[in-house]
C-alpha cells in the first residue's frame, strides 16, 4: 500500500487545496501535506532491501484484463532516488513560491500536487499503459503552471512545451500497443507489463532502419529524448524555463527532465539491447554535441535564467552520455547526475527567482557588485555554482567524474570532447558570477529607492536543505550508491537479456521472523 498511497495521496491533497476555504492557511497546509508526503517516502528505506536488484514493494491488481493492463507499481534501486528527489523538492518548492505566486494560489498548489502524482507514477509504474498515463498526465499541470503563472511569452512557451512533448510520446504509445500484441504472440496472453516486455525477444537486423527492434527502439527513444531534452530536440526547454514561474522551473529541471533519462534507463536500453548497442554512437554523439552546444550557448545569454536553462541542456547531455557508456561506472554516474542536476539546477532556479523577486529583472548587464550588498545570497549562489560546475567535494563532481570515467572506458573519443564541457561549464558560470556579483554596482543594485534585502529566514529555510544535500552527496556518495548499486549492476551485467524479478515482500518478513525465532 505504501507506493499506492505515495502516488495517489497527492491527488487527495490537490482536492483539499481546491476546497480549502481559508486563503491564509492554505500555504502552511500545503507545506504540511508535502512534508507528510516526504516523510512517507522516507519510510521506503525501512522496507527496501538494497542488496536485491529485484522489484520491491510491488502492488499489482488487474485493471483492463482484456488487454493485460495492470495496476502495477514497484520500486528498485533505479527509481528509488528519483522518488525521494521528487518528494524532497516539493516542500522546498512550496516554501520557495511563498511570495512568488500571489494569483490563484489554490489552483497553483492543486496543480503542484497533481504534478507530483504524475511524476511519482511515472517513476513507479511497471505497466506500460499505466506508465504512459502518468507520463502524459504530467503535461497537463505543467501546461497550466507555465501558462497561468508564467512570464510574458508564456502562452507560446506552454503550447510549444505541450505539443513538442506529445509528438514524441504518441509514437511511444503506438510502440507500446505493438509490443502488447508481441507479448500475445509470444506468451499467448496479452500483457502490458514491463516485466513481460523484458522477456520478449524482438528480432534485430543490424544496419537496417526499418526493422522491428530498431523502429520500436526509436519510437521509445524519441519520446524520452524530447523530454530529456537531447540536443536537436531541446528548443522547447529554454522557452519553457524562461517563461515558467520559479517553482515551475524548479520542478521542470529538477524532476521532469529526469523522467526522460529515467525512461531511457528503465525502458529503452533494457528493452531493446541490440538496437541500443548498435545506435549508441548516435546518442553519444548528440549527447556530446548537447554538452558543448549547451555550454557555448549558455555563455552568451544576457538573461540569467536562460543561461541556467541552457546549462541544463549541457548537464542533461552528460547524463545521456553516462547511460550510453553501458558500464557500471557510467550508469551510476548518470543516475547520480540526475539527482545532482535536480538539486543544483533546482537551487539555481530558486536563487534566480529570489533575485528576480527583488528587482524584477534577470538581465545580467543590469547587475554587478551584488556581493557587497547581499553577502549571504552571494555565498549561497557561490556554493550552488560550485556544485553546478562540478568542483570536488560537491555533488556535481562525483557525477561528472563517474560519467567521464565510464565514457573513457567505453568510448574514449567521445570523452575527449565531453571533458571540454567541464571547462566550458566553469567558464559560463563563473563569468556570469563575476558579472553579477563583482565589479562596479549595476543600475539595479545601486538603485537607492529600492534597497535590496539579504536572504530572509524563509529563503534560508529553502536553501539550507539544498546546501546540505550538495555537500552530503559530494562527500559521502556511498550513502547513496549503497541503495542503487545492486540494480545498476544487474542492469549492466544482464543488459542483453535483462529480466526483472519481483521480490515477494511477504517471504522476506517470514524468513526474517524465522531467523529471529532460531
Amino acid at each position, binding site marked *: 500500500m505504501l507506493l499506492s498511497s505515495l502516488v495517489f495521496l497527492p491527488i487527495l491533497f490537490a482536492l483539499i487545496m481546491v476546497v480549502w476555504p481559508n486563503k491564509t492557511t492554505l500555504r502552511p497546509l500545503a507545506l504540511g501535506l508535502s512534508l507528510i508526503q516526504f516523510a512517507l517516502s522516507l519510510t521506503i528505506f525501512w522496507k527496501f532491501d538494497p542488496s536485491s536488484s529485484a522489484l520491491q514493494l510491488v502492488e499489482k491488481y488487474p485493471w483492463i484484463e482484456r488487454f493485460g493492463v495492470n495496476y502495477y507499481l514497484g520500486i528498485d534501486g533505479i527509481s528509488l532516488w528519483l522518488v525521494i528527489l521528487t518528494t524532497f523538492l516539493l516542500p522546498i518548492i512550496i516554501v520557495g513560491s511563498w511570495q512568488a505566486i500571489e494569483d490563484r494560489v489554490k489552483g497553483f498548489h492543486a496543480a503542484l500536487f497533481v504534478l507530483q502524482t504524475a511524476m511519482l507514477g511515472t517513476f513507479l509504474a511497471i505497466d506500460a499503459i499505466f506508465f504512459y498515463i502518468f507520463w502524459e498526465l504530467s503535461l497537463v499541470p505543467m501546461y497550466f503552471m507555465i501558462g497561468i503563472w508564467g512570464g510574458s511569452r508564456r502562452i507560446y512557451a506552454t503550447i510549444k512545451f505541450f505539443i513538442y512533448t506529445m509528438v514524441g510520446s*504518441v509514437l511511444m504509445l503506438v510502440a507500446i500497443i505493438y509490443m502488447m500484441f508481441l507479448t500475445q504472440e509470444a506468451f499467448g496472453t496479452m500483457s502490458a507489463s514491463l516485466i513481460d516486455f523484458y522477456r520478449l525477444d524482438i528480432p534485430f537486423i543490424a544496419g537496417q532502419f526499418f526493422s522491428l527492434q530498431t523502429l520500436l527502439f526509436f519510437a521509445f527513444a524519441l519520446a524520452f529524448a524530447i523530454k530529456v531534452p537531447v540536443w536537436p530536440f531541446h528548443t522547447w526547454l529554454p522557452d519553457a524555463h524562461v517563461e515558467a514561474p520559479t517553482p515551475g522551473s524548479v520542478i521542470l529541471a529538477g524532476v521532469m527532465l529526469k523522467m526522460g533519462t529515467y525512461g531511457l534507463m528503465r525502458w529503452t536500453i533494457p528493452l531493446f539491447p541490440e538496437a541500443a548497442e548498435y545506435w549508441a554512437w548516435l546518442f553519444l554523439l548528440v549527447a556530446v554535441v548537447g554538452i558543448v552546444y549547451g555550454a557555448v550557448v549558455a555563455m552568451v545569454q544576457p538573461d540569467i535564467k536562460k543561461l541556467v536553462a541552457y546549462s541544463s541542456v549541457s548537464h542533461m547531455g552528460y547524463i545521456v552520455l553516462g547511460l550510453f557508456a553501458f558500464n557500471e561506472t557510467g550508469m551510476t554516474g548518470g543516475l547520480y547526475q540526475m539527482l545532482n542536476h535536480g538539486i543544483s539546477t533546482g537551487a539555481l532556479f530558486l536563487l534566480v527567482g529570489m533575485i528576480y523577486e527583488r528587482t524584477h529583472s534577470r538581465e545580467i548587464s543590469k547587475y554587478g557588485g551584488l556581493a557587497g550588498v547581499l553577502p549571504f545570497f552571494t555565498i549561497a549562489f557561490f556554493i550552488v555554482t560550485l556544485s553546478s560546475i562540478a568542483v570536488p567535494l560537491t555533488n556535481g563532481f562525483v557525477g561528472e567524474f563517474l560519467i567521464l570515467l565510464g565514457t573513457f572506458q567505453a568510448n574514449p573519443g567521445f570523452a575527449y570532447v565531453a571533458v571540454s564541457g567541464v571547462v566550458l561549464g566553469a567558464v559560463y558560470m563563473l563569468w556570469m558570477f563575476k558579472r553579477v556579483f563583482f565589479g562596479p554596482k549595476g543600475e539595479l543594485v545601486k538603485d537607492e529607492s529600492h534597497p535590496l534585502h539579504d536572504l530572509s529566514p524563509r529563503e534560508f529555510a529553502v536553501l539550507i536543505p539544498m546546501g546540505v544535500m550538495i555537500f552530503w552527496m559530494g562527500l559521502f556518495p556511498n550513502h547513496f550508491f549503497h541503495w542503487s548499486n545492486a540494480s545498476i549492476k544487474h542492469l549492466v551485467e544482464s543488459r542483453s537479456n535483462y529480466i526483472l524479478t519481483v521480490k515477494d515482500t511477504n517471504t522476506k518478513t517470514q524468513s526474517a521472523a524465522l531467523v529471529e525465532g532460531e
Partner: protein
Amino acid sequence: MNIQIGLPDILLISPMIALFVASLIPITIKVLRGNVEQAPFATLIQGLGGILAATVLLMMVAGSGSTAFADALVLDGLTKWMGFVALAGATGAVLLMYDNPSTNGDQFSELMFLTLSSVIGMLILVSAVDLLVVFIGLETMSLALYLMIAMSHEQKLSKEAALKYFILGSFASAIFLYGVAFLFGTVGSTYIPDIIASTGDLISSSRLFVFGITLVIIGFCFKVSIAPFHAWTPDVYQGAPTPHTAYMSTAIKAVSFAAFLRFISTKSLVGSENLLDFLQWLAVLTMIVGNVAAILQNNFKRMLAFSSVAHSGYLMVGVITTGISDNMSFAASGVIFYLAAYTMMTLGAFAIIALIEKDENSSVKVEDLAGYAKKRPLMAFCLSLFLLSLAGVPPLVGFFGKFYLFAAAIGEGLLWLAVWGVLNSVISVYYYLRPIVVMYMKEGEEDEAPRGFGATKTTILVSAILVVFLGLISGPIFEAVEKALS
C-alpha cells in the same frame, strides 16, 4: 407476399412504440388546449419519460439477437449498445433544447415530437439488417432533423443550414439508394446476410457488385462526414441551434456509424484491395482535413464541427479494422466505446457553448472565452476536461477510446493508420488547447451570470463526471460490449 406480424414483433419494437406514444403526448395536449403551449417543463418531462421508457425496454428486449418483422430488424448487442449511446445523446440534447433560447418557448412541443421521431428513426437504423430498412431508418431520422433545424428561432443561418443539410442529405440518400439498387441487381436481395453470403463470389467477379458496395459506402461516408464528403458538416453544425448540433454530432453520428458497421461486416473490404486502399486514404484524409481546418477556425462551434470531422476519421480506422478483422466484435467494440466516449465529451463541450451564448442569434468565438476561468471556475474546468479528453490526454475517457480503437487497428496490421491517427491527435492538441489558453490565461470583462440553465448545467456536470471516470472503469465495459457483440 404474405406478411405476418405477431405479438413477438410488437414486443421487440416496444422501445420505438414507447417513444412514439411519448412523442404524441405534448402535441396532443397542445391541440386539446386550443393551440396553447403547455409548460415547457411538462413537455420536457414527457419527452425524457419517453426516452427513459425506451431505454428500459431496450435493455429488456435487445441483446438476445432475436429478429422481428421477417428478419428485417435484429436486436443484438450492437443494437443494444448503440441504442444506449443514441438515447444518451438524445437525452443530453433534449435537456439543452429546454434551456436554449433558439429552441425553447414557442413550438417546444412540436420540437419534442420531431426529436423523439428522429430517435425512433435511430432505433430503426441500429437494428436494421435489410438495406431498405436502413434507408427507412436514415430518412425517418434525417427528415425530422431537417425540420428541427429549420424551426430554430434564429432567422438566417439555421434556415440556410437546414436547406443545405436537406439538399446534401437527399443527395447522399440518392447515392445510397442507387448503390442498393446495384446490390439488389447482383445479389437478388437487400438483406445484409444474403449479401454477406454472396460477397465472396461476387466481389472478384462482378464489377456491378463492387460498384454497388462502393456507392453504399459513399452514402454512409456522407452521413458520417468523411472527407471529401464532409463539406456540409461545418456549415450545418454552425448554423443549427447548439442543442441540435450536439444532437447531430453525438446521437446521429453514433447510429450512422452503427449502420456503417453492420454494412462493413459484409467483408467486402477483404476481397477488394482497391476498396480497402480507398477507404484507408479517406480515413487519413478525413483526419488531416478535419484537424487542419479546425486550427484555422475562430468560431468555437465551427471548430468543434471540424473536430467532429477529424473524429470521424479516427472512427473510420475502427470501421476499416472491423471490415477486415476475423475478430469483428473486438474492433467493433472499440468503435462503440469510442462513440460513447465521444458522445460524453462532445455533448459537454456543446453544452458549455450553449451556456455562453447570449441569445438565439449570438455566435461564440474562441476569444469570447477570455477570463471565463475567473468568472465560472467550475464550468471552465469542465470545458478543459472535455477538450483535453477530445485531444486524447490520459486518464480521461478520450484516451481510452483512442487506445481501444488504435489497439484493434495495430492488431490487424494497420500500423500506419494508427500512426496517422496518433500524429493527428497531436495536431488536434493545438486547437483544443486554444480555448483553454483563452479561458485561463487571458483576462476578460465581467458580465452578468446567465439565468437558469439548470438542465444544461446538469448535462455538463454529468458528462464531466463520466469523462473522468468512464475511462478508468472502461475495462469491464469494453468486455461487456465485446461479449454482447460476439
